[in-house]
């Protein structure tokens, strides 16, 4: 009884990372517990019903979970918790969705009372058809997604074994010339394909696009790829052309500007969720071809309407790609029921340790407001307060100092307020990318940055998602929206891309002391520290004095 794991009564698991059995323990608990925090000494995992069901879907049983807990736990595991785990896991798979040769889609059970219980629910009744035998009930094929969603809400997640349509075949191969899928990418593709549908969780910069390409090469069929925005769509296209046998002509872009439907089509969430007169005019995209695979990029950002469309696409293979399963809106369960269980997961730190991601040094620089700014801040309207403190003039000086210190390296300055960014751009002599910058201009600037023609780039929110800036080694965040967790992951991802020369990446966030800005920064700090990154806090004076 001297294991590395401590099981807490709130179902968190504390793992002592320096313990000799820590690695073995981590492997044992990873299938069912979500890593919640990974600071330097003790990692926190959480056991949730979804996590347990993910484990069940991956073929683990309650016995293994209980054994893992009991074996590695330092203190005796509360009996009630073990019972709870066993009971929760036991709920998965009591109901199965499958194809019946005569009746089409059916819901079968191994435990009749469960079926009776769910059939009594008012929310299930409209989704099912005739009772075929005591253990089987017909399900309207169109409700395959809906029923899975509802059953999950009732606490009886159904296993979907109804299979998939093959879709229209289209030859796709990986063009592995001079490069190859990394072992974990291969594993991810394999797990996904074996599981049918599901989500692959990989950190930013770990090559999610390649996992998508790998899955397409497996499927060898027409593919619909949903991405967050146009820039990201272009990047996918670029990457696919480079890494697979696909040519430019085979890949279509379906966005606000272009409406091409080709064997591989990349569409943005934005265009899909555009509403005109109460209807979604671009929905026919889903039916425009017999898609064999649908890829969802950045699943954690998937907008709610897309879930609704996805519910109708349950007969097609679905691959979700994301850096984190945590959704700000708490719709993790919809991801589970509509896209599929988690099929692959690798903690950031582990991939980083394998040398694919540069370690980052995170520094928070605290600047003092001047006396007049403090007064203005104190008297500002509530909704104006954040703007006041986030755009204090001192931040400019600090930013300049940082840029000076890292002169010659690729530096990104990220912010929320256009005025502030414009001003910074002017002072730093750097181009600014913001919402009204045209896509062509954006790509031109990004390319120039990539080539090292410009070394400092000032970007606003719009640059946050799915752009690829491989050579950025320093990021300076001068203002940001409300310390959202996923935004943080994105921003850090910008500077975490592998560097050619093994340079250490730096992430600076400049915050105003004793203000809202600092409170938001505290969230940020916590998140980064929880991800295991070294985090320091500096005073602006210290930094200015150094440079």
């Amino acid at each position, binding site marked *: 009884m001297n294991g590395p794991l401590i099981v807490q009564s709130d179902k968190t698991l504390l793992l002592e990372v320096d313990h000799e059995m820590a690695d073995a323990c981590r492997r044992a608990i990873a299938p069912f517990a979500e890593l919640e925090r990974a600071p330097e000494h003790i990692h926190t995992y959480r056991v949730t019903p979804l996590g347990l069901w993910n484990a069940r879907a991956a073929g683990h049983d309650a016995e293994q979970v209980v054994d893992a807990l009991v074996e590695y736990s330092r203190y005796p595991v509360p009996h009630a918790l073990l019972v709870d785990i066993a009971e929760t896991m036991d709920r998965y798979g009591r109901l199965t969705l499958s194809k019946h040769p005569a009746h089409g889609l059916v819901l079968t059970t191994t435990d009749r009372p469960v079926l009776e219980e769910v059939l009594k629910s008012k929310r299930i009744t409209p989704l099912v058809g005739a009772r075929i035998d005591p253990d089987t009930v017909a399900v309207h094929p169109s409700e395959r997604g809906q029923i899975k969603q509802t059953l999950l809400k009732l606490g009886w997640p159904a296993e979907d074994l109804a299979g998939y349509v093959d879709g229209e075949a289209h030859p796709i191969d990986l063009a592995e010339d001079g490069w190859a899928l990394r072992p974990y990418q291969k594993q991810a593709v394999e797990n996904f394909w074996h599981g049918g549908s599901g989500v692959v969780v990989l950190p930013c910069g770990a090559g999610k696009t390649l996992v998508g390409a790998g899955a397409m090469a497996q499927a060898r069929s027409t593919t619909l790829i949903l991405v967050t925005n146009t820039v990201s769509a272009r990047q996918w296209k670029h990457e696919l052309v480079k890494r697979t046998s696909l040519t430019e002509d085979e890949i279509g872009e379906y966005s606000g500007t272009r409406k091409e439907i080709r064997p591989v089509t990349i569409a943005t969430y934005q265009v899909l969720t555009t509403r005109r007169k109460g209807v979604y005019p671009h929905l026919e995209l889903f039916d425009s071809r017999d898609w064999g695979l649908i890829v969802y990029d950045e699943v954690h950002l998937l907008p709610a309407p897309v879930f609704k469309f996805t519910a109708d696409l349950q007969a097609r293979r679905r691959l979700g790609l994301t850096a984190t399963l945590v959704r700000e809106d708490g719709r993790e369960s919809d991801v589970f029921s509509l896209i599929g269980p988690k099929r692959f997961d690798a903690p950031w730190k582990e991939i980083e340790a394998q040398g694919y991601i540069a370690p980052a040094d995170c520094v928070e620089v605290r600047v003092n407001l001047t006396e007049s700014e403090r007064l203005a801040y104190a008297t500002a309207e509530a909704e104006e307060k954040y703007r006041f403190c986030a755009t204090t003039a001192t931040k400019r000086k600090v930013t300049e100092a940082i840029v000076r210190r890292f002169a010659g390296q690729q530096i990104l300055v990220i912010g929320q307020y256009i005025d502030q960014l414009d001003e910074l751009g002017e002072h730093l002599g750097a181009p600014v990318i913001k919402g009204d910058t045209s896509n062509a201009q954006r790509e031109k600037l990004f390319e120039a940055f990539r080539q090292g023609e410009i070394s400092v780039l000032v970007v606003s929110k719009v640059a946050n998602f799915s752009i690829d800036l491989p050579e950025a080694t320093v990021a300076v965040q001068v203002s940001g929206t409300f310390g959202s967790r996923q935004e943080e992951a994105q921003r850090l991802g910008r500077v975490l891309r592998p560097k050619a020369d093994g340079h250490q990446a730096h992430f600076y966030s400049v915050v105003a002391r004793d203000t809202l800005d600092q409170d938001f920064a505290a969230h940020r700090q*916590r998140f980064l520290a929880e991800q295991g990154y070294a985090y320091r806090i500096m005073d602006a004076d210290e930094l200015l004095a150094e440079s």
Partner: protein
Amino acid sequence: MSTEEKSAAPRSLAEALRARDDASLAALLRSRPDLITPVPTDLTQLATRAGTRASVLRALEHLDRFALQTAEALAVAADPATYGELLGLLAGDDPDPVVAGALPRALGVLRTRALVWGGDDRLRLVRTARELLAPSPQHPSPTGLGPTVREATAGMSPGRLQEILAAAGLPSTHDPVSAVAALTGLFTDRTRMAALLADAPADAREVLSRLVWGPPYGQVTHDPAAHLRWLLDRGLLLPTAPGTVVLPREVALHLRAGRAHRTPEPVAPPVTAAAAHRPQVVDATAAGQALAALAMVEELLKEWDEGGPAVLRAGGLSVRDLKRTAVALDVSEPVAAFWVELAYAAGLVASDGEADERYAATPAYDEWRELPAEQRWARLAEAWLLGTRTPGLVGGRDAKDRTLSALGPGLDRSAAPEVRHRVLALLARLPEGAAPDTESLLARLRWERPLRGPRRDETDDLRTRLAHWTLQEAELLGVTGRGALSAPGRALIGAGPAAPEEPAPEDAAGPGDKLPVHRHAPVTLPVLSPAEQAVATAAAARVLGPLLPEPLDHVLLQADLTAVAPGPLERPLAEVLGVLADVESKGGATVYRFTPGSVRRALDAGRTAADLHAFLAAHSRTPVPQPLTYLIDDVARRHGRLRVGAASAYVRCDDDATLGEILADRRAAGLGLRRLAPTVLAAGTDPGTLLDGLRAMGFAPAAESAHGDVLVTRADARRTPPRTAPEPVPDGPPAPDDALLAAAIRAIRAGDLAATAPRKPGPGTAPPAGGEPPRTGAAETLATVQAAVLTGASLWIGYVNAEGAATQRVIAPVRVEGGFVTAYDHTADEVRTYPLHRITGVAELADDAG
């Protein structure tokens, strides 16, 4: 028992009792303690009391299922019955060896408890018990048998009887008595009955088979169908009321092959193990849970430290407060109710008794907190084991449909301690580390104490629910771990460290336990005496001590501003950390989170940033992370920049010099003046005093309106006045110990002797008339009493109480001084003091009379 019988068969229960030896009387009194409160004067009175309805009911309720079935069988047998008849009723025509083997024990139990008396040839059920158990239309017997032929034909016309005889193929008789006898004789004769029934129409046999296991009553119309008529004609069904017929007992017994019960249950169902864990795992789990229990109680009282929830007018905790507490403790409401009730039962929390009544910790809590962990646990566990309060009832409704609230009235269930003890005792008999199969455990408990009367829904009676709660609560407390009894739990109930071979602790345990039944002194006490329990509790604490993890003196600090204590912390460390950081997660380890708020709290508590840095450095296994250091400095930087103080009055003056003058003046010393700013002085006295003082110094101050008075109150931890823990409300008197039993028996015997045997004339005293209190002179009284103090003998005294009523008592004098006798009064069962002058006479107990 029959060996103790004298040559002449006893004619009454009293005589049967008189014939019993002391050990057997002690067994009776031990099993039915209500018989000696108060101590009866003689055996006749004892026998009378043993036959009262209340006492018999109580005795019947304490029988195990087979003993009860035996009593039920006796109630439907002839009175008196022979052992053979009884065996026939229980085992049927072809005796089941298991039943035959179990019967002597069951009969022994009934005899011990004075429910049955008489030798094996003349077994008699006490009349009251017979009345209670015999079948009647109002109270159907669990046997499902109807009245006898004689009872059922009581109002029948002689002519009709003769008709029945004729139909049944019997010769006619002269009178109804012999007719009934002839009919009974036919019905009890298996061969002739078989022949008679062989002719019965199939429909008629079907009717009989429907009635045979009861209820024996059926409805018929005025013009019954042919097959019913066939039965009625032969007396196989007898009319009881218009339209109602009954199957006579003898016929039913014939059809049942002589058995009174469909399923005799001679053997206690064994408790089976559902799972076996390693004993170390069980003990470790239990120890972990024990620690969690302590933490829970402490957290509860910390929550209530500055004024707990209000007491409802009807007593107890409101539903909302319970909910709030449950949320604060992060447990479900029933579990929260359990902890609250546990703290209450242990005397750690009580109502403060003030006008605005609230719950608060008692002073005992402060003492408890200082105890080592194992002793704290032992106190809780003992309070739980012995308490009659049942938290499981909270949230339910009482008979008047009022909600039962935690800490409120109506939660006492006298059966609770006994059930708890019994459940644990059954667990103790499983092999170490074995968790019981709950259903088998419940079945066993139901066998040991069945519900009387026809079988009801047995899953919902109080004892079953109590047993369920016991299992849950034992797990919460760490008395069990993973369902199996832990070593401390075993010690708590006084069971040996691991003795599955131990003989049954209660005679109710059936022979099904396959254990040699040691019956020389059957231990019928399910619950230990207070002294024994104290020893057992101390033993439990000793066993628990080494199982608890050693408290740690260090934590791990991390850059995300958390500290993880990978185990229980030493108390001082835990207390400081509790102030400096917020607890985020509990369990085996504790996760603390540092926030600006928590650091400020520590600074408010008088610590400095340097203190905190030193504290963290001293107790951290890892380097203190830079963000944490920064956080403390950052909070400290701002801490105390604004100052707040209390002033009762102030002096304002535009002229600095005047204020300087006032401050310098010696007469101002008592005014508590302090300069806050060049033109403002703050004063510690109220404005009136200040004005007077300044005037006395020769100034002419003017008062300003006194809005700015600041009153500072410090919140203090609330405590009730000293409170005692609630007394358990036991069911009936406490089980007597051996000394008391011996004394009581001696007293009864003495009284009995006094009442029944002629007395030798004492020297110089008139022999008291039979049963009358003795009369002796004052001198002899004193001498006898003093002699009794030396010899420790018990005396029989006549005594006139303060109201002038003459009584007689049996006392064991302890000392004589100042005209008073201090003595243990067997009659009242307590130590009392008697003025010598009120004692009308004494007599030594003739305990050796024979």
